[in-house]
C-alpha cells in the first residue's frame, strides 16, 4: 500500500472536523531538522511541514551514515564476520551475530548443541533487558525527565555487569560462534545472574510506578503518536512498535529459534496490561516494560531447564573454517531483536568469504510508521514520538551512491537494472 495514502486516510480519521485547514498552504512552513542536530542521537534528516505547532506533512531522509559493513564482510571469512556483525549495532549486537550464525548454520547444515541454544537465549534476553531499560532512559530524557534517565541507567548497570562477567565485555560481547557459543555459564556465575534477576524484579515495580502511574508522563504520552493496527500492518512495523499497536507479531513466538520452542513465549500487546490497544507512545512504553518482565521469566526458565553438554559444534576454529570454506548455497537468519525482527541473508559459493551478505535491521521497518505517527502532532512531540520506535539509524543504512550533489538509495531492483546496463555497455564495447 502506498504510505502516503495511509497517512492521508489517517489524517482524515484523526481530524474529521477540520478538513479545510489542511488546504491552506500559505500558513505552512517547512522545518528541516538534521542530518546532524543536537536533538538527534544519530544522523537523519527530517523535513516537516508545520502549520503553527502542528505537523501537517512528514518527510525524512535516511542514509546519512553509510558504513559499508556488508562490503567489508564479503572480504572476510565467517568467523571474522561475527565480530563485524556485532558492530552493526552497539546495543543489540548479540542478535546480529546470532542471526548471522543462524544463516550460516542453515547453509552448512550445522546442528547446534542444545546447551548452546539455551545460552544463546539467555544472552539474547539479557540484551533485551539492557536495551529496553536503556530505551526507557532515552524516552525519559526526550520527555525532559533527566533524573528518571539517570535512574534507569543506574539500574541498567547491573545487567551490563552480568554480561561483562559472562562474556568478557560489557557491550560488544563476542560470545557467538558458528555452531554454538564461545563461553559457558559456570556454576559460580549462576547465582550472580539470579541475583541480578531478583534486582530487576524489585526495580521493575519502581520503573512501573515511575513510568506508568506518573500523571505528567501519562499526559505527554497517552494519545500521542498513534499508529493504528491497520497502518502498522500496512507499513510492516515490527517488534514492540507493532505489538503496541495490537499486532501479535514476535519471531520468538511465530518461528521459534534457539531455545524458544521449549519456552512458552507469547507476543505481548498492551491489551494484556491495559485491557485495550491505542497504539500510542504510552502503549509502547507499556509493551517494553512488560517485555523486560517477560525476559526475566525466560532467563529464569532457561537456567532451570538448561541441559548439560557441549556448547560448540566444532571446537577447533581452523577445522570449522575449513568446513565453511566448502559450503555452497544461501541461508536466511531471522530473529527477534529488542527492536524487532532482524534478517540476515548470506550466500556462500565455496569460497572463504561469502559471496553476498545482506542485513535488514528492524529500524528500517519502523521508520515508515513515523509518517502516520507524526501527522497532526505538535512539533514538541516529535522527539518522543520518533524515539518511541527506538530507532537505530546507523544499523539501518545499507547501500548509498553519491551522485554529484544528490544521493540516491539503490534498492535491489535498481541495482539489478544498473548491473544489466553495465553488462549491455560492456557487450557494446566488446562489439558483441
Amino acid at each position, binding site marked *: 500500500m502506498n504510505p502516503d495514502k495511509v497517512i492521508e486516510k489517517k489524517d482524515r480519521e484523526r481530524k474529521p472536523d477540520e478538513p479545510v485547514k489542511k488546504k491552506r498552504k500559505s500558513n505552512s512552513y517547512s522545518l528541516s531538522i538534521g542530518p546532524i542536530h543536537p536533538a538527534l542521537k544519530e544522523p537523519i534528516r527530517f523535513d516537516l511541514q508545520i502549520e503553527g505547532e502542528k505537523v501537517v506533512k512528514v518527510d525524512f531522509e535516511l542514509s546519512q551514515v553509510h558504513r559499508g559493513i556488508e562490503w567489508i564482510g564479503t572480504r572476510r571469512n565467517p*568467523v571474522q564476520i561475527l*565480530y563485524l556483525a556485532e558492530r552493526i549495532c552497539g546495543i543489540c549486537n548479540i542478535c546480529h551475530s546470532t542471526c548471522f550464525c543462524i544463516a550460516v548454520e542453515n547453509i552448512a547444515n550445522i546442528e547446534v548443541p542444545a546447551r548452546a541454544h539455551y545460552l544463546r537465549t539467555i544472552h539474547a534476553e539479557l540484551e533485551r533487558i539492557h536495551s529496553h531499560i536503556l530505551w526507557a532512559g532515552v524516552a525519559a530524557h526526550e520527555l525532559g525527565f533527566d*533524573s528518571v534517565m539517570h535512574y534507569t541507567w543506574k539500574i541498567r548497570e547491573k545487567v551490563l555487569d552480568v554480561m*561483562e562477567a559472562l562474556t*568478557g565485555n560489557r557491550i560488544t560481547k*563476542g560470545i557467538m560462534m558458528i555452531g554454538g557459543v564461545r563461553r559457558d555459564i559456570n556454576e559460580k556465575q549462576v547465582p550472580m545472574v539470579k541475583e541480578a534477576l531478583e534486582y530487576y524484579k524489585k526495580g521493575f515495580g519502581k520503573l512501573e510506578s*515511575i513510568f506508568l502511574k506518573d500523571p*505528567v508522563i501519562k499526559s505527554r504520552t497517552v494519545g500521542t503518536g498513534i499508529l493504528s493496527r491497520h497502518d502498522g500492518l500496512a507499513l510492516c512495523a515490527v517488534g514492540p512498535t507493532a505489538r503496541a499497536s495490537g499486532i501479535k507479531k514476535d519471531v520468538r513466538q511465530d518461528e521459534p529459534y534457539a531455545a524458544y520452542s521449549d519456552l512458552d513465549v507469547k507476543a505481548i500487546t498492551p491489551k494484556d496490561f491495559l485491557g485495550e490497544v491505542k497504539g500510542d507512545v504510552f502503549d509502547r512504553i507499556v509493551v517494553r516494560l512488560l517485555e523486560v518482565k517477560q525476559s526475566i521469566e525466560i532467563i529464569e526458565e532457561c537456567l532451570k531447564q538448561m541441559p548439560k553438554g557441549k556448547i560448540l559444534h566444532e571446537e577447533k*576454529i581452523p577445522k570449522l573454517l575449513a568446513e565453511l570454506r566448502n559450503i555452497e548455497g544461501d541461508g536466511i537468519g531471522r530473529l527477534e531483536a529488542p527492536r524487532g525482527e532482524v534478517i540476515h541473508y548470506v550466500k556462500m559459493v565455496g569460497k572463504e568469504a561469502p559471496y553476498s551478505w545482506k542485513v535488514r535491521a528492524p529500524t528500517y521497518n519502523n521508520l515508515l510508521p513515523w509518517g502516520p505517527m507524526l501527522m497532526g502532532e505538535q512539533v514538541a512531540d516529535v522527539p518522543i514520538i520518533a524515539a518511541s520506535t527506538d530507532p537505530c539509524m546507523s544499523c539501518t543504512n545499507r547501500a548509498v551512491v553519491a551522485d554529484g550533489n544528490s544521493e540516491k538509495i539503490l534498492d535491489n531492483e535498481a541495482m539489478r537494472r544498473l548491473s544489466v546496463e553495465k553488462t549491455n555497455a560492456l557487450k557494446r564495447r566488446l562489439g558483441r
Partner: protein
Amino acid sequence: MFEMAKELFKQLFKKPFTNMFPAKHAPKSTVGFLKKVEEGKAKLNEPVPIPEGFRGKIAYDKEKCIGCKLCIKVCPANAFEYLEKERKVKYHLSRCTFCAQCVDVCPVNALVSTKEFLLSDYNKK
C-alpha cells in the same frame, strides 16, 4: 512524580552511584594527573573491579610463537602483521577490537588476554 521524588530524596543521603575514576574531582589534565600518580604524588581512585575472563589488551609472547599464521586468519581487524624474516607476527594494538578470537585459536598459547584496559595514548607506537 511522587515515586521519583522519593528516590531522589533518598539519593541525597546515599553515596553517588558513579565510581569517580580516575579521581574524585576531575583533574585539570588527566595526563598530568596520571603522571603524578606514577610519581607517587597523587592517589588513583580505584576502577570498578574487573571480572574473571575479561578481554583486555592482548599479551603476545614472541618466544612461544611458531608462526602458524592462524591468528592472522581469524583476526577480524587485521591486527597482526606477518614478519617474513623472523617467521613471527607483530601485534598492532591500535587495530585490535579485543574479541580474543586469536587467544582461542593460538595453538601454543602465545597470545593471552590481560586485564589491562587503560590503553588510550598520544603515542601511536
